[in-house]
């Protein structure tokens, strides 16, 4: 058996740690199930600095040090890799997660300490790597889903790892290896609803993988069937994700039985009172299941006695929960059912209330469906969390005003994100040269710069630069139409766009390209009588 150290890198240092890393908790459970010796160091939770990371690296004779995470963990991962190589030189370093998957060749080059990368889903790949190391082998190219170093230099990408379909065979996450009492439960509060605010013992679960929609700013990094292997410009095998006109999906979800058993396990073992569904889009799964999946999960909640019941003192028994919805795919009925089972808030990526912007982002939502779902959700007694983004490629003065009007009319309190081309998203591929140009050709600088999109990094707007977007956001927050009108006149003069003409510099060709696919998504979703309407666009097949 191999002696494995898994390190959860630090992320979002400006906030307290709020989420047990679900992927690492699952990989730890899988490795232990296979008989390996596993320890977890949750650097993000403890935030003890480099000295403790060094101490952890010398605390035992590790065979494997594994780390990974989302793209925004890059700086931390790079630091951990350096420390691990210096203090545990004998350990094979394994990197995974979205960070590695989005740019496998670049990551192996930028972080030379990594011996082998786990590309895409690691549920099968990671334990196979552990088994090989345990046997003394280092021929990682024989394991599907890896990128590793050739003995003579250079990189080898092995065959692509197919996605796992029997998700219910996964063990429950090894939550017990993380500082729940010391850190996570203290930070349980989710300020999105009254029930979320009062959560004191929250754990997150993931009931499904992927999303059938093709939001161009979004990324799935292989887990949604969105990844392909193709030869790149250098003739090397590399990953490819959504590209204009090319979208692939493989939708997978756990059975309601598994979800129920998982929540019961969390309740029995950790006495939780709130669950956050991490799923990208619960409504995709519900649609794929023929509208049975959410209903069955809600029934489980009732059957297990977790549906909350109000107490006289204003508190309640049971387990409230939250998740993600979709403006067009939700129904009035399912929202009511979800509320009755304890759903307190649902995140909606409304993104914009401007029809001409919504048409280009591949979401399959319209201003009308945004408004409809907004009121349905409120009527059901669930708080909608109305996420907004500005700085889309065709964002213009009209869309800015439409958003402000909507916020004002609907009582939306929001500080919008900036449209950010995260690696793995279609817009990262489309705008790669433009992004690189904003960082003097140094893509690694862009990766370092990436945060949670509340601050600005690479700009993909054709009409506004970073300074303009920052200024416009401030004026939007104050609903200051006068300043925006004034600036529009300056902008039109600078770009020689006459009054009355659309305030855009985006070429008609590019708008047309965005719209072609958007119309396909829209018409497929609209035809709700046809089974799996979204699958028609994406070619996705649902499994659980």
């Amino acid at each position, binding site marked *: 058996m191999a002696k494995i150290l898994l390190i959860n890198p630090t992320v979002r240092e400006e906030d307290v740690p709020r989420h047990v890393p679900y992927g690492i908790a699952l990989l730890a459970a899988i490795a232990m199930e296979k008989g390996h010796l596993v320890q977890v160091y949750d650097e993000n939770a403890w935030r003890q600095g480099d000295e*403790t990371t060094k101490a952890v690296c010398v605390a035992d004779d590790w065979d494997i040090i594994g780390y990974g995470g989302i793209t925004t963990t890059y700086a931390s991962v790079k630091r951990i890799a350096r420390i691990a190589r210096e203090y545990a030189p004998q350990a094979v370093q394994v990197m995974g997660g979205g960070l590695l998957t989005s740019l496998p060749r670049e990551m192996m080059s930028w972080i030379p300490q990594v011996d082998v990368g786990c590309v895409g889903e690691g549920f099968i790949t990671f334990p196979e790597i552990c088994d090989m190391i345990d046997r003394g082998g280092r021929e990682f190219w024989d394991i599907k889903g890896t990128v590793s170093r050739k003995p003579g230099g250079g990189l080898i990408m092995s065959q692509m790892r197919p996605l796992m379909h029997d998700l219910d065979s996964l063990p429950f996450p090894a939550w*017990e290896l993380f500082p729940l009492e010391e850190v996570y439960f203290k930070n349980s509060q989710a300020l999105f609803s009254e029930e979320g605010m009062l959560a004191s013992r929250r754990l997150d679960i993931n009931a499904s993988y992927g999303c059938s929609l093709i939001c161009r700013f979004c990324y799935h990094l292989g887990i949604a069937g969105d990844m392909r292997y193709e030869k790149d410009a250098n003739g090397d095998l590399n990953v490819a994700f959504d590209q204009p006109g090319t979208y692939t999906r493989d939708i997978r979800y756990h059975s309601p039985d598994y979800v129920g058993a998982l929540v019961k396990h969390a309740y029995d073992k950790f006495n939780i009172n709130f669950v956050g569904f991490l799923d990208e889009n619960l409504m995709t799964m519900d649609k794929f299941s023929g509208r049975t999946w959410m209903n069955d999960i809600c029934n489980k909640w009732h059957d297990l006695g977790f549906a909350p019941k109000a107490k006289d003192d204003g508190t309640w028994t049971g387990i409230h929960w939250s998740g993600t919805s979709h403006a067009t795919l939700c129904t009035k009925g399912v929202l009511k059912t979800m509320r009755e089972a304890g759903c307190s808030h649902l995140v909606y990526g409304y993104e914009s209330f401007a029809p001409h912007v919504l048409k280009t982002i591949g979401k399959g939502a319209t201003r009308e469906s945004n408004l409809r779902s907004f009121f349905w959700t409120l009527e059901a007694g669930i708080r909608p969390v109305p996420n907004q983004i500005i700085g889309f490629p065709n964002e213009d003065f009209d869309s800015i005003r439409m958003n402000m009007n909507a916020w004002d009319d609907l009582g939306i309190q929001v500080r919008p994100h900036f449209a950010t081309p995260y690696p793995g998203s279609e817009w990262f591929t489309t705008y790669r040269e433009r992004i690189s140009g904003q960082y003097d050709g140094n893509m690694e600088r862009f990766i370092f710069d990436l945060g949670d999109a509340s601050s600005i990094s690479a700009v993909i707007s054709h009409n506004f630069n970073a300074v303009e977007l920052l200024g416009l956001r401030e004026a939007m927050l104050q609903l200051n139409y006068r300043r925006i009108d004034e600036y529009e006149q300056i902008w039109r003069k600078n770009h020689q766009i006459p009054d009355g003409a659309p305030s855009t510099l985006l070429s008609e060709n590019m708008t047309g390209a965005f719209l072609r696919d958007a119309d396909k998504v829209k018409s497929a979703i609209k035809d709700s009588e046809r089974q799996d309407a979204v699958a028609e666009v994406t070619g996705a097949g649902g499994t659980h």
Partner: protein
Amino acid sequence: MSNDVLRGNFKTRDKVEIKQAEETLEDRFEMEAKKRLGGSIAFVSKKKVMWDTDKK
């Protein structure tokens, strides 16, 4: 609750424990002030400021 930062399914050769960072009054003040930064709430972050009065 445990002071061990390493959690797993075996006992490691060396134990690694949490080092409790001592929060000073200065740290606490600066953290609280930062939360309300804006308008008339402004302060000097003492760990960042560098000055040498002798050089003047």
